[in-house]
Every structure is written in structure tokens, then in C-alpha cells.
């Protein structure tokens, strides 16, 4: 291994004496015969190791698999939120009734059957994943046809909650003891280690009591001035008290 390298400086020395010191660029082809050609097989070019062969180069890494790829195949039934395809980058794009997560995962937004398809009118190169409601439906939809949409909602008679609750409160206030007791009994152990009302019920107290807040008007300078003056006066008073206490 080492032998050819050891010879290198001496070889250079020999060649310096053998050949006139004229660089290759200035030496015309027609004058080349004037100079003696290098005869020694020893005096040839040297190739240093510029390309690494060991260590982490040349794709030597082999990490753990990331379990990417299709999680649902074509025409498989999915429900909203099901992951259909995991990928690095957007190999596939979300089509009908599908969404794309922040790591480009394709997931279903409706229950139905998965379809893998191309839609050249939408994009000439992209591959799409869609979900259809009927298994035999084709994607992409015919040109300019209305979208197929699902309601996914059921009707319910609206509870007039606020009215009912307001009436209950009235009854409690007017001496309706029984209902008040029921409420007391329904208290539960809640976060904070105490028996108390639920947070949402506390939040609606003002609404139940009929507390009205004045509507904020951004342009009402008169109200703003009054508030600001009151605040300033209060602060000044507080400051005065503090100073007095120190003295």
C-alpha cells in the first residue's frame, strides 16, 4: 500500500530533470514530438483517495422503517378520521371527501369507499385519493357535474334551554325549595377537590341572572373619557395612600 506513495517525490524529481519545464497548455500538438515522451512506467499520475469509502457515506445508513404507505386499499370502507395513506411529502393528494394532515397523511372526512384516481382536468400530474358514498361510483366525477354531498345530520326538536332554566331560577328565587335541593344534591366532586357546580354552569350564571353588560362602542369617546378619568383618579388616590403609609 505505502510503496507507490513513498516513490512519489523522487518520481517528481526525475521528471523535472527529464522534461523541459513547459506546461501542457502552451505545448502545441505539432511540437510534441520534439520532447521525449515519458518512458518509465513508474512515472504515471497519482490518484489520491477523494471519495470516501467508509463510515456514514454511500447510503450506509439503514434506519428503522417508518411504516409508510397505504393503510386502506381501493374500495375499502372507511369512516371519518380513518387514515388512508401515510407518506413523506405529497405523493398522493386529497381528493373528494378527504383531507391532508400536517405530515401529508391522507385521511377520510366522510364514511364511504376509498378510490385512488387521476384527475387530469384538475391537475395533469397529481394522483388523488377520494372517498365515495356508493361503492360503484367512479372518480373523478364527470366534467362540470354537481358534487355528491352527504348531509350527515339528523333533526332534533330544539330545546329552549335558556327559557326553561330561567323559569327554574325564578322558582328557586321565589321559594321553590324542592328544586333548589335537587340542585344541591346533584353537585359532584370536581377538579379542585370540591363539590361544586360544573364550570359551564358557573359560566352561564350571569346569563341566568339576567345581568346585562353595556354594549362596547368603539367610537364612544365620551364613555372612554369618563372611564379613563375615573381610573386615573383611583390610581392617584391609591398612590397617595401608599406614600402616606410609608411615611
Amino acid at each position, binding site marked *: 500500500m505505502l510503496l507507490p506513495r513513498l516513490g512519489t517525490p523522487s518520481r517528481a524529481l526525475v521528471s523535472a530533470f527529464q522534461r523541459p519545464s513547459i506546461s501542457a497548455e502552451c505545448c502545441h500538438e505539432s511540437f510534441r514530438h520534439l520532447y521525449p515522451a515519458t518512458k518509465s512506467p513508474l512515472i504515471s499520475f497519482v490518484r489520491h483517495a477523494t471519495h470516501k469509502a467508509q463510515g456514514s457515506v454511500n447510503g450506509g445508513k439503514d434506519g428503522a422503517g417508518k411504516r409508510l404507505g397505504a393503510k386502506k386499499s381501493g374500495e375499502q*370502507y*372507511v*369512516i*371519518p378520521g*380513518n387514515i388512508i395513506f401515510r407518506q413523506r411529502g405529497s405523493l398522493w393528494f386529497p381528493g373528494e371527501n378527504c383531507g391532508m394532515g400536517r405530515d401529508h397523511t391522507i385521511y377520510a372526512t366522510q*364514511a364511504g369507499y376509498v378510490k385512488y384516481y387521476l384527475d387530469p382536468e384538475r391537475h395533469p400530474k397529481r394522483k388523488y385519493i377520494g372517498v365515495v358514498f356508493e361503492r360503484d361510483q367512479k372518480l373523478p366525477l364527470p366534467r*362540470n*357535474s*354537481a*358534487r*355528491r*354531498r*352527504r*348531509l*350527515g*345530520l*339528523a*333533526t*332534533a*326538536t*330544539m330545546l329552549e334551554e335558556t327559557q326553561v332554566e330561567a323559569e327554574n331560577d325564578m322558582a328557586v328565587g321565589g321559594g321553590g325549595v324542592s328544586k333548589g335541593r335537587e340542585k344541591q344534591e346533584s353537585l359532584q366532586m370536581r377538579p379542585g377537590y370540591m363539590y361544586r357546580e360544573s364550570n359551564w354552569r358557573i359560566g352561564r350564571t350571569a346569563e341566568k341572572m339576567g345581568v346585562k353588560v353595556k354594549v362596547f362602542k368603539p367610537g364612544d369617546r365620551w364613555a372612554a373619557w369618563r372611564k379613563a378619568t375615573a381610573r386615573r383618579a383611583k390610581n392617584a388616590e391609591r398612590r397617595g395612600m401608599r406614600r402616606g403609609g410609608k411615611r
Partner: protein
Amino acid sequence: MALDPAIVSTPKEEKILMRMGVKPIGSRRRRAALQTAANIPFEQLPYQCFQEARKILLADREEKLEEIEVERSRIARLKEQDAAVSGGEQQKQTRLRSMMNYLEELKILADINDPVIKKRYEDGEGDMNKPIYRYLADKEWRRYRRPLLMQRITQMAVVPDILPHLDPVVDIRLAFGRHNVQPGNFIDSRVSEMLPKLRVQVFDKGERLVSLVVVDPDVPDVESDSFKYRCHFLAANIRLSPAEPSLAFSKLSGDTQVLLPWLPPFAQKGSPYHRNSIFLLQQPDGKEIDIASLREKVKRDGFNLRSFSDKHSLRPVGVHMFRSTWDDGTASVMKRAGIEGADVEFKRKRVEPLKKPVLPLPRKKAEPLWKFR
């Protein structure tokens, strides 16, 4: 003190003028500048270079006017010519059409460089019967308002959902009372209860007959677990011309024009937003639609605009849209309009999971260590 709409520059004065029904002219900056400027007409301005440039423009205009005369005489000659000489009737009509197009182009080119015309257009004093003002208005519309409209109707899928294809050529502005509506705005149901007012600007000459349709494609249909269409307004045989852009729903005649009167848009609680879309459809060759015969046939629920426009060979020329959701006023609006279903609420239907949930195993009681037993 009388306020001059050309030079008022404070918001207070502008407001007073607006209340009187006069619109201030141009920008506030320009009006402020005009207060101190000597109002000298263009011809007397003392700038030599400007006057020389005006001379060139005027010469160009003269040239264009001559060309117009020449083209007109050519057209007249071709009209008189026998069809056999000019290569058949079809060939003749094609040539005539292209010559007319060129004539229109020349008319615009004659006036396009005139500063006075530009000023008059920007002051809102342009006469829409003249091609140059129509051209300028069209250009302005296509610069911003039309792309915005196209974006809204494609992103909200009005185009494939209600009509297969749409290439608007008419500028529509929508207002409820004094509320101006941009395409796609959410409108309070109490506001949209009022009859809308349209300002329809067409950019080609002449009168035409149009139909006006308001469709809601998002009516929830529980039986089919899908959505239906509903027509909120339908009128036909409305005359439109470039100089008269105002189209108020309240001004249409109930006997000869309105087929389905205004039904206030509403969205029941829990239903996704409703895209109330307004379409303007041009009737072919000024042909009137027979309203009396249609009165029994046309139904609000399940109204299909595709089939309606196909049947009467209507060409969609303009579109506008606004959205509505359930709000505090919807119940009262529905009550006033005599619509039932204000107490109905839509709730999400549960989708059955694919796997049954795995119940946690019953926890073992912790046994004490052997030495503490």
C-alpha cells in the same frame, strides 16, 4: 351654505352631502387639491409640452374618425352587395361581423387617449351609451371585481353545484337597504329579509331581456341524507340596458315579471351555511318567457336551474352570492315569512366505528410483598 361635491374634503361635509343624496366626486385627496387649484380648462393650461402632446392626440383622433367613416362606408357597401359576389351568405355575414368588430375597436381607439374622457369617467359622469365609457368600466371590473367574484364562486363551488359553467360578462352589485354585500359575505337573516337591490352594469350596447333567479343549493334533506335546491326568487322578462343599471326586486311587476316572489333566506340551526346565489340569465334574441303558463309548473323546492335554463335556452351572464347561517333573528324571520321548522335543530349523526372499543381489563388488586404478608 351650499357644499360643492367637487371640492368637499372633510368627512363631516361629505356625510352631509351623502345624506342629501349627492356623491362627492373623485378622491378626497383630489378634492382637497382642487380647493386651491385655479380651475383652468385643459386648452388654456400654460404648459407648452402638454399642449404639443394634446395636438398629437387630437391629430390621432382625427385620423381615427376618418378611418371610422371609411369603415362605415365599407360596411354599407358590403351590405348592399349581392351574397353571390362576396362568396356566399355565410362568408358575407362573417365578413360583416369582423368589420363591425373592427368598427367598435376604432370607436374606442378614437377616444381612449382623451384626458377629458378619462376625467369624466373617473368622476362617474360617463355616459354608458357610449362605447368608450363601457370599455373603461369593463376594464375596471375585470381588473379586480371579476377575479374576486370568480374566486368566490369557484372556491365555494357554486359553479359545478348549481350551473355547470359560468363566464360572467355583467357586473352585479348587491345591496340590502344600505348594506352593500361583497360576494360570499355572511348576511344576517334580518338584513336579507328585505328585498335586495341590484346594480347591474352591462358592457355591450343595446337592450336585452334577462331572467333573475336566486337559488339556495344547501337545503338539508334528511330523507335522502343529502341536500336539495330551493328557489328563493324567480323573475323573467326584465329589460336591461347599459345606461339603466338599477334593478330593484321591489320594482318588478308581479303580473308580467315575477314568477316566485322573494322568500327570505334562512338556515335552520345546525345546518351548514347556505350559499344563496343570484343568477342573471339572458333570454335568447329578446324572446319573452310566457309567465302565465309557467306559474303552475315552477316549484320552489327542488328547483333545478340547470334544467330551467336548458328548457328556455337561457345563457348565464352574471352571478352574485351571499351566505346565511342560523342567527338570533332567523326564528323571527321564519315566523314572519310563515315558514315552519324554526324549532328544528340539526345534530351530527353518529358514524359507527369500524372496531368495537376494547374495554380495559379489570384491575388486579395490588398484593402485598411476600415479607409483609
